[in-house]
């Protein structure tokens, strides 16, 4: 190539870089200067950003694009900041009609916001599942009154839609695909997850309670009317993360959570288990937190439709080994798997109730005793629970 044309390309690149800086500064200035109860309108187009866009301490602000896949914030060239969009210390914030793509870390993180509303928001890593993608797509943490409606999350190396350490939450009408966890509710209170579609994730919908956090005990979660199917994607989470332990082929997983009502979902063709109920011990992680309760309790699974092809579990990961060498279900894999590890000192026993599911099958894998007495008898679990979940978003 001639020197002059190289120079020309270099100067073009420089212009592109400075244009990116201008957009970055313009949007960031808007997010700082917007008045309370104001609107930041993002026109149609793809914007290349170089760093996190942040908003702090605002009340009643709406950030509105021209539509999912019409207003696209692309962070492929990000050189600073751990998130795409970060919203902190606010109230009644709305994010609408926009897409956030290819962030280096989490796509949209909101922290300490009272009243956060995601509507028609898409978070995506366009190359699809990849362990170098950011951890979370839509990520409210330490928030309350959370509504995630008609959103779409793809490619997160941890969870596509992840609500952590929050309370009063609704996740509905949304799609999660090609994430490690499709939708995850973690250490959170009062959540409703309904009318969503979770497919081709490693695990479809997870409800977890983890140790060593300020909000230790979540619970009162309802999962209903969701389509949870073909969550058989290879687990691409970097090791060390709790979701890295989720076996490929998991539909719904309840880990050490309490008061979870799972009903009227269609749970199909998740190869390893339609629904898994386990204690934190199954992770084989140490528990140093003496105030943490590692057992699931009050879990009610009823009125769901279970379907699966007659095939083996995925046999991948540590859980795969378990299936292969210990559980030996062959092609007759049960839809509902319970690790059987319960609190022997509990005043009221940890309850698991399973009723009226179409196509249901079950195994208690007796994980506490080296999987010696695997039992597929579900007679002892034929009971009902009343799990009150009232959510107030007002």
């Amino acid at each position, binding site marked *: 190539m001639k020197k002059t044309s190289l120079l020309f390309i270099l100067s073009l690149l420089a212009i592109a870089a400075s244009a990116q800086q201008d957009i*970055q500064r313009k949007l*960031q200035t808007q997010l700082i200067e917007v008045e309370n109860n104001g609107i930041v309108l993002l026109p149609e187009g793809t914007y290349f950003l170089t760093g996190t866009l942040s908003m702090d301490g605002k009340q009643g602000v709406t950030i509105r694009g021209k539509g999912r896949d019409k207003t696209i914030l692309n962070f492929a060239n990000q050189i600073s900041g751990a998130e795409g969009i970060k919203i902190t210390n606010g109230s009644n914030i709305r994010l609408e009609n926009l897409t956030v793509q290819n962030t280096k*870390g989490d796509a949209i993180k909101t922290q300490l916001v009272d009243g956060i509303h995601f509507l028609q928001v898409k978070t995506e890593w366009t190359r699809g599942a990849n362990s170098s993608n950011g951890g979370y797509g839509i990520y409210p943490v330490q928030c309350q009154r959370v509504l995630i409606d008609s959103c779409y999350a793809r490619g997160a*190396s941890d969870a596509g839609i992840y609500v*952590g350490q929050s309370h009063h939450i609704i996740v509905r009408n949304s799609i999660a695909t090609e994430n490690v966890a499709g939708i995850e509710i973690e250490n959170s209170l009062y959540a409703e997850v309904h009318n969503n579609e979770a497919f081709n994730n490693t695990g479809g919908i997870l409800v977890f309670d983890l140790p060593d956090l300020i909000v230790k005990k979540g619970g009162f979660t309802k999962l209903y009317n969701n389509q949870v199917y073909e969550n058989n994607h290879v687990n691409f989470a*970097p090791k*060390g993360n709790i979701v890295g332990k989720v076996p490929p082929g998991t539909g719904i997983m309840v880990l050490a959570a309490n008061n979870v009502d799972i009903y009227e979902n269609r749970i199909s063709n998740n190869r390893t288990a339609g629904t898994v109920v386990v204690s934190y011990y199954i992770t084989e992680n140490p528990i140093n937190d003496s105030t943490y309760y590692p057992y699931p309790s009050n879990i009610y699974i009823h009125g769901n439709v279970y379907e699966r092809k007659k095939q083996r579990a995925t046999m991948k990961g540590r859980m795969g080994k378990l299936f292969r060498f210990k559980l030996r279900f062959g092609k007759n894999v049960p839809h509902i798997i319970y690790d059987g590890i319960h609190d022997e000192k509990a005043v009221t026993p940890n309850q698991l109730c399973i009723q009226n599911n179409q196509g249901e099958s079950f195994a208690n894998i007796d994980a506490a005793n080296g999987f010696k007495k695997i039992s597929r008898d579900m007679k002892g679990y034929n009971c009902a629970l009343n799990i009150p979940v009232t959510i107030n978003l007002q």
Partner: protein
Amino acid sequence: MKKGSIILLLLACIFLMSHLQTSRESVTKQKLSEYGFFDGPIAQLKPAAGVIPYELNSSLFSNYAEKIRFMVLPPGKAAVYQAKKPFDLPLGTVLVKNFYYPVDFRQPDKGRYLIETRLLIHEETGWNALPYIWNADQTEAYYDVAGDTRTIGYIDSKGKKRTTHYAIPNKNQCKGCHTNGKEFLPIGISARHLNKTVHSESNSANQLLIWAENGWLKNLPDSGVPANANWEDESSSIDQRARAYLDINCGHCHSVTGPANTSGLYLDMFNQDPTALGIHKTPVAAGRGSGNFSYAIVPGKPEKSILVYRMNTIDPGIAMPELGREQIHKEGVALISEWIKQMKP
């Protein structure tokens, strides 16, 4: 209408619009020089009367930029000592932090290049962060809320030419570090950071004693004032140095009341819980920040500790701390690695 009057009208519109945009923040000075902090050419940062220079035992790593700090107290007012929290500073106090690169780190007299000056002003409504960015001529710094990214060149302490991105934080990002609970607070103006010997042309003395003698600090106790180590001072123990380093670099976010409390990892000086410090602690929402490792700290094994992994990269999705890290702090990585290596498994 004549051409001239159209232009005049346009100019009037532009003036009005720009005036309207800034009127809301009319109290904010647009130029650093308007504060009158410095005597002589402003880039020399020669403090005017009442502008007090100060130093910290261990300071935050900011992409190898050097810093010069000043405190300006309102006339007749003083800071009030607190042992753990930042000192209680009177309304009207201004903290002035200037970021620059020497042209050549081996020869400070070769000059320097100022990039930004961050002010923290204690106002009626709380602390306010005001970022100013220096012009290329080094004659003025201008108020700028949006932050920016610059490319910086310098010669490092080993004589090597360096070129680096330098991300100037935006106004919100200032809050990211300075938020504690619901409060916005200074960080460095704390007993443990300021309790050190400082040297001037005439003598050497304890910085806090100087403050007390000058009436800038009230209620300084005679004894029991905490002091962090200087992480670079090899006469301190590795544990003191590492904890001091983690305290100033990470502890403002990673504490029970800091913004990173979502992780359960507490790296401030006051944390005594080994799990919360990271020892055999599993990550919570680290994503690919875990680097395929299981624990923040594996005693004896820095190469398997997430803490070191995240310090030892500039990938913005992984790097910690999140700001001021367009380069790896090699000396910091070495210190924390050695600390973990010496931990008994």
